């Protein structure tokens, strides 16, 4: 059970994220509605110069298909650039440790991982230490050069987060009454970068440095310890990466141990700030939804639905007693380790501040819930999109039950809409369950030494769930660096990212200019509807995944109960 002081800490962090999200929302709306802002004086000339350089007409409005295609093509080119950096880093500058380039399948998997906002990592960014804690000598195994950390990892972390928020804005435009088009992807992308991500990350990065996170281009420092042995201090451009990896709900760390590594997360203050950053924009987007629609009340089921599901995740995770256990850091203890695991999966960031192996099966079950639901409040942009998908499904179910034509925002929901949302929903089970089974059927799971039984099953199921949800936390880490896991997770991440985005943009496209009635049918901004929404989501997700959850964390829980912890 949770201690009172810890409960208060948790509530205060969540409240501050909600308040800050509410305050940030009007600013985000201005970015996408091109409303005048005080920043225009400085940023307008910069943005216009970029549009000229790109050769795009900012006033050109796109339909859903062109918006989706341009997002997809830009993302593909960005991944290709990062791929080149990963493969050739050995011969490129800013590589003080002289790390060799990545193998082709690892580079392929990693660019897709970062490009889809997933951030599964089958490598240790800092290299592999032979001997902990002194880390000397450092093995010459695939680590990342500073150039790769910057121009491949941080680069894709920025662009995938930006893409997420852009497609969400485009989808919302489809639902807005009387909108003529879904916007222009290039202007959305440039404006989100110059006005939202770059300035916020600059501030956040400097706060992190102040709290102790390194930011230097000098190579690793070798020192003689107090007792005279040799130690490698693994510094680098860490703070700039941490800012975007949390704010962009990416989650890919500078170090293999992610935010458990003291340089990436030095104290409880930096830990709380990282949790806050993860929650900030997904929460703000719930408000943005209502404000862009011009119906602020419609943000209620999105926000409170998300936070109710989040509360359920927290309830499950905090059933067992938590304490500083194996695989956790002393400065975070049991509470911050458990809280982090729930947050990072609820917003599908995927960063970790403890080893997942150290977590209780119920905490892992809660992590699964976050990743399977994907909108509590979910990742950057896509969390809101999934929540709207659940709203449409719920409207349809309620319509069936009451025998009325389902309506949302005064628009009739037709058969094609329902097909689109059901297809979107079904993508997830297919791309999680099929590869999990394949990993066992082909022997790929046993090849990397995953134990048989519920613990091993949890690890494999978690890997593909994390990949499909574009989360990125995992049990496998660098042991997953085999062709089977690199290629299978890459395909799962790609499908889990772009198929739902494409389908939901198509849905929004068909909503555009649909006739709206002013008569109020089903009220979707009420508390009753939110309760039905949360109930439907739980029912859909639990029914779909229960057999797999039962074989994994649930079975593990009962086995540990019988055998003792």
């Amino acid at each position, binding site marked *: 059970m949770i201690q009172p002081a810890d409960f208060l800490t948790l509530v205060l962090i969540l409240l501050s994220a909600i308040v800050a999200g509410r305050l940030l929302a009007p600013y985000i709306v201005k970015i996408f509605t091109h409303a005048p802002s005080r920043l225009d004086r400085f940023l307008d000339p910069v943005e216009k110069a970029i549009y000229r350089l790109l*050769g795009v007409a900012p006033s050109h409005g796109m339909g859903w298909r062109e918006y989706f295609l341009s997002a997809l093509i830009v993302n593909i080119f960005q991944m290709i650039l990062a791929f080149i950096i990963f493969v050739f880093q050995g011969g490129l500058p800013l590589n003080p440790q002289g790390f060799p380039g990545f193998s082709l399948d690892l580079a392929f998997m990693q660019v897709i991982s970062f490009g889809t906002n997933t951030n599964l990592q089958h490598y240790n960014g800092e290299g592999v230490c032979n001997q902990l804690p002194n880390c000397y000598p450092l093995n010459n195994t695939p680590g990342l050069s500073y150039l790769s950390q910057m121009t491949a990892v941080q680069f894709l972390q920025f662009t995938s987060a930006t893409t997420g928020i852009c497609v969400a804005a485009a989808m919302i435009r489809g639902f807005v009454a009387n909108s003529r088009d879904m916007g222009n992807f290039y202007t959305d992308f440039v404006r989100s970068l110059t006005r939202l991500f770059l300035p916020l990350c600059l501030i956040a990065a400097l706060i992190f440095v102040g709290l102790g996170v390194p930011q230097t281009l000098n190579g690793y420092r070798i020192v003689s310890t107090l007792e005279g042995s040799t130690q490698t201090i693994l510094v680098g451009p860490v703070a700039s990466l941490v800012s975007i990896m949390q704010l962009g709900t990416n989650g890919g760390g500078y170090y293999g*141990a992610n935010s458990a590594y*003291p340089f990436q997360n030095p104290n409880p203050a930096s830990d709380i700030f990282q949790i806050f950053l993860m929650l900030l924009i997904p929460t703000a987007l719930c408000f943005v939804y209502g404000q862009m629609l011009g119906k602020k009340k419609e943000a209620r089921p999105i926000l409170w639905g998300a936070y109710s599901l989040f509360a359920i995740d927290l309830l499950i995770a905090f059933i067992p007693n938590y304490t500083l256990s194996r695989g956790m*850091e002393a400065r975070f203890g049991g509470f911050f380790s458990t809280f982090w695991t729930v947050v990072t999966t609820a917003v599908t960031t995927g960063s970790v501040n403890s080893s997942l192996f150290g977590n209780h099966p119920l905490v892992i079950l809660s992590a699964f819930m976050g990743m399977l639901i994907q909108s509590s409040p979910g990742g950057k942009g896509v969390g809101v999109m999934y929540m709207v998908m659940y709203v449409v499904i719920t409207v349809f179910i309620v319509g069936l039950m009451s025998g009325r034509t389902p309506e949302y925002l005064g628009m009739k929901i037709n058969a094609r809409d329902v097909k689109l949302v059901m297809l979107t929903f079904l993508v997830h089970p297919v791309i999680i369950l099929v590869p999990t089974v394949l990993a066992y059927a082909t022997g790929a799971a046993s090849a990397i030494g995953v134990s048989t039984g519920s613990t091993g099953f949890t690890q494999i199921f978690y890997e593909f769930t994390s990949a499909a949800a574009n989360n990125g936390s995992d049990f496998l880490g660098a042991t997953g660096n085999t062709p089977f896991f690199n290629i299978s997770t890459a395909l799962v991440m790609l499908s889990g990212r772009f198929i739902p985005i494409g389908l939901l943009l198509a849905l929004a496209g068909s909503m555009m200019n649909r006739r709206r009635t002013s008569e109020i049918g089903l009220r979707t901004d009420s508390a009753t509807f939110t309760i039905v929404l949360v109930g439907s989501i739980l029912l859909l997700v639990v029914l779909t995944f229960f057999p797999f959850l039962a074989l994994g964390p649930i079975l593990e829980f009962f086995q540990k109960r019988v055998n003792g912890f």
Partner: protein
Amino acid sequence: MSLTKEIGRNSTPAIRLAVVSMLLCGLLFPLAVTGFAQVLFPSQANGSIAHFTTSNSKAVGSYLIAQNFSDPLLFEPRNSSLSASGVDPDITLQDAIAQVPRISNLTGIPQGDINDIINQNVEGTFWIFGSPYVNVLRLNLALIHNFQTIYEQKDPGLFVL
């Protein structure tokens, strides 16, 4: 408009946007952060390097990264396989207090004095929040400086510069 036409029309701006965003987010941003960080917080930006004394510049590691202490006269960090990072620089307050009798017996420093040093170095709590922990390197440096003559006598190797 046809699909191929939409793809064709967007290819050139897409390549250019990819390059521009790479330069902006991957190069300009981290370099700007590095510049500001090195000016504003030089110590943290370079890895919170610990020095033996404030007057002498000998680096003895980083406050944020655990190091081996095999000397029973000093506080020991957690076994590296117990933490998530393998380099957990801190121990819990209880863990530190549990080591006091051993250090006191071997060095002859009164337990109360060692407890005082621990209490001066407790971190991680704020009002009613948090759980207390101490940084092992900070603790050991404080011990050595407060009881320099004892450590010079018992473990002269620590003072070789």
